């Protein structure tokens, strides 16, 4: 049992395909692990025991019938509670959707099911994906398996914690400003934000439509690639979906190399606010890349200094509109409907009671930024910055194949430490946000533990749009070299729960 939960997704799939284990055994092992540790970790908001076992049984039946199984058939997965699941609660970490049972599957959910990936349940997250610590969940925080008093990152802290706690070998996250990569960084796992439009947003509850992107989370680069291949691809139900073949990510993950590559490091991604141990591990990573045959190029991307400010205008603006639909009329929470109040009053009372403080803060910020008289100065200017950032990336990628940086300026901070300081919280996404604004692809993978606190540090790899395969090529090379250096995967150093 203990063996099964420590396997990679690729290994599990191989064992199921060969008949060495059944999908039901694998699922049961993970459900048992969830039973054993999730009370402490709180990675899951909802465990769909029956649904998962039914899916696993179906995989076993397929195998018995001699049908061909997909590359991830029978592998369990933890799904961020932002994707709709037909018949299974979807809360987005918010009280306002408590008890809502979606009548439809997100395209991503459908693709997972079609690929026979076993969905164990829905993972905790900052309410509406707004946050960097999962503390903004209406259902309580998630602990970082490395130290349960620390945050697991956010907004996808449930997914990253589930991986690090061996509750699932695969997870799904969504990344609007870093919500896949920063949790991956602080939990010693791998997370990828694909190119905007690579993974369908249909059925993914919107926070900021022009920035949101679903992506794979795993414990290895290859597993992330296998999952990437399953969830990516054109979806006619999402107008912003890319109508082009998925880049060869699995092939890239199987042939990791940086030999002869030009790799950029950006001046703007270091300095004040960066933890010494993070910088140290990052610098070591750059040295490693050189040893592996890469050429390092220093880049200046001045617009990146404006990214955080632009992001905190664009994302709240879009969210103020996206979240308007939560009005107590058709689904979710309804407060004050006692027969004496108007629809308008019920809507107001419901939103008052149903949204947490961070969501309200952003809805107000966005409402303000879009108001007539302020639109040009705020939303309009932010869009201009966005264009500048895209240009800086374009110029950079004329010189280099990928860019590397720390994923996040610090290791996991303590639960509660930044809860009252939104600005400090926002800084966690300093290095990840420019990628969302430009729409290109990025990965975070472990590059060691910070000497001062023994917590994982993430290395971010950034690739041009549509070149997601480069992330895997570089990531696989770095992962292999570090694993050899450390003698084992980094998660083995995490305390057992």
């Amino acid at each position: 049992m203990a063996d099964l939960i420590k396997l990679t997704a690729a290994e599990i799939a191989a064992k199921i395909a060969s008949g060495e284990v059944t999908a039901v055994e694998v699922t049961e092992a993970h459900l048992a692990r969830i039973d054993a540790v999730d009370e402490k970790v709180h990675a899951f908001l909802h465990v769909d025991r029956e649904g998962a076992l039914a899916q696993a049984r179906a995989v076993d039946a397929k195998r018995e019938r001699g049908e061909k199984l997909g590359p991830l058939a029978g592998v369990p997965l933890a799904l961020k509670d932002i994707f709709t699941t037909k018949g299974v609660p979807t809360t987005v970490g918010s009280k306002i959707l408590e008890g809502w049972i979606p009548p439809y599957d997100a395209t991503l959910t459908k693709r997972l099911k079609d690929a026979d990936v076993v969905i164990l349940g829905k993972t905790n997250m900052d309410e509406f994906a707004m946050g960097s610590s999962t503390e903004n969940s209406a259902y309580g925080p998630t602990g970082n398996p490395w130290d349960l008093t620390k945050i697991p990152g956010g907004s996808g802290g449930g997914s990253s914690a589930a991986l690090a706690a061996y509750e699932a070998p695969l997870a799904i996250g969504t990344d609007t400003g870093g919500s896949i990569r920063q949790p991956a960084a602080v939990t010693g796992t791998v997370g990828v934000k694909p190119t905007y439009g690579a993974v369908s947003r249909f059925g993914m509850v919107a926070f900021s439509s022009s920035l949101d992107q679903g992506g794979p989370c795993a414990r290895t680069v290859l597993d992330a690639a296998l999952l990437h291949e399953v969830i990516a691809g054109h979806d006619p139900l999402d107008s912003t979906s890319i109508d082009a073949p998925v880049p060869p990510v699995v092939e890239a993950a199987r042939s990791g190399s940086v030999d002869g590559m030009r790799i950029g490091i950006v001046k703007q991604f270091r300095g004040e606010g960066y933890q010494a141990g993070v910088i140290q591990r990052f610098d070591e990573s750059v040295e490693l890349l050189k040893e592996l045959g890469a050429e390092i190029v220093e880049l200046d991307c001045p617009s990146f200094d404006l990214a955080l400010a632009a992001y905190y205008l664009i994302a709240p603006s879009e969210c103020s509109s996206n979240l308007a639909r939560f009005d107590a009329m058709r689904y979710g929470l309804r407060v004050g409907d006692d027969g004496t109040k108007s629809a308008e009053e019920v809507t107001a009372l419901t939103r008052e009671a149903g949204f947490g403080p961070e969501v309200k803060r952003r809805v107000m910020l966005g409402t303000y930024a879009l108001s007539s008289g302020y639109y040009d100065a705020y939303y309009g200017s932010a869009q201009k910055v966005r264009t500048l950032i895209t240009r800086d990336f374009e110029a950079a990628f004329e010189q280099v194949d990928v860019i590397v940086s720390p994923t996040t300026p610090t290791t996991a901070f303590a639960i509660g430490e930044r809860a009252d300081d939104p600005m400090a919280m926002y800084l966690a996404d300093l290095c990840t946000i420019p990628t969302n604004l430009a729409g290109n692809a990025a990965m975070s993978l472990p590059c060691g533990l910070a000497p001062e606190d023994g917590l994982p540090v993430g290395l971010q790899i950034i690739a041009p749009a549509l070149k997601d395969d480069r992330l895997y090529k570089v990531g696989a090379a770095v992962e292999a070299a570090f694993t050899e250096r450390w003698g084992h995967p980094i998660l083995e150093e995490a305390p057992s729960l």
Partner: protein
Amino acid sequence: MTVTDLVSYEDALATYEPVMGLEVHVELGTKTKMFCGCATELGAEPNSQTCPTCLGLPGSLPVVNGIAVESAVKIGLALHCEIAEWCRFARKNYFYPDMPKNFQTSQYDEPIAFNGYLDVQLEDGEVFRVEIERAHMEEDTGKSTHVGGATGRIHGAQHSLLDYNRAGIPLIEIVTKPITGAGERAPEVAKAYVAELRELIKALGVSEARMEMGQMRCDVNLSLMPHGSEKFGTRSETKNVNSLRSVERAARFEIMRHAAVLSSGGTIVQETRHFHEEDGSTTSGRIKEEAEDYRYFPEPDLVPVAPARAWVEELRTGLPELPRLRRNRLREEWGVSAHDMQSILNAGAVDLIVATIEAGADAASARKWWMGELSRRANEDGVDLAALPITAEQVARVCALVAEGSLNDKLARQVIEGVLAGEGAPDEVVEKRGLKVVSDEGALGTAVDEAIAANAAIADKIRGGKVAAAGALVGAVMKATRGQADAARVRELILERLGVTE
């Protein structure tokens, strides 16, 4: 304000110049909604034509209906507009329970069509050019039914029922530039514009544009300025004026009301107003102290629409003849007066007459039946002419029977009556009602000749001037034809044969 407080229309126009702006919403007749695949049929069970997207469920996303874009481009082209090479949708943010997302996906500063005009013809034949500001695409809202209030409006209602079948139906909003210079004819221009636009929309085949079904809705913006002034006055916005006659009445009422307020030293407040069919008045709705802030921004869930130039030109080439030009052409071809043509138009008979002519009838006969007997019946039954259970082909057949002499007008009316009564096609009615023999002049003539030959004495009396004696010969013919002949016609034939007139 009561009607007695109004300034007379003539007095109002003596002092002020009206300025109008007309906003018309047209529901497109696409099979599916603007942003999802739901059906658009009218009259379905409430909320049966909905899906996650048009209900605004969390996670749902829109996809643009290509046919709707094509319809919008066609409308734009027919209105002589420029067609955007690249335009985006925008979100119009405001809360209302019948709007599932609490924003309407619309277009803001990048409409698909802009800068055009529509020439409308007034009743006396004068052509007035109405400039078009823009035509843009958007989605309809759901439909609220407010229960328990006195007015049927949300205010005072106990509860409201929401039907989202209409939510997401494609709409084209067509906005005029300020219409000036119409003077006392402003209400007539407003009506003629909406009528012409309706004809145009129907001719394009993009919507049935039935105002009574809400498929076409009009907002009348109106302000007055003193003659000689160039600065527009404050406007009122009379919402949802939903018949041609109401458009005219609403404009007329507002001219009188504005004049009354201004003449007594008052100021017009910018507000929306409700129109009342019963007495043609308007009452205050919602006061717009400042422009409502809809916080428009480009819709991030949709990609820009970029109609290819070649495609636009293809659509332009395929446009039908504009209704006004067609009407003028038909008027000449049919040789009718402008006034008669207007009556034909008002009766909704143009296409029916065209179809009847295409089915073989001559113009005069086709017009005579549709504008005479059939219009009378439609009126009596309170239905549209087109809704009568008779086809243009059937009317054409009746015309043919008359032309070949098989029917006279009186009998033709009976045939039409039979068709309307569901007795079948004209020939079947002729057969069933036994009008066939009557129409067979040859057979009847033979029977008459035989009767004259067999009753030579009576025939002589008649020839001698005793016309009353004809009754006996009629009786003989009726007997010979076993009662299936038209006695009056028989009598005519007898007198004709004997060279006698009454």
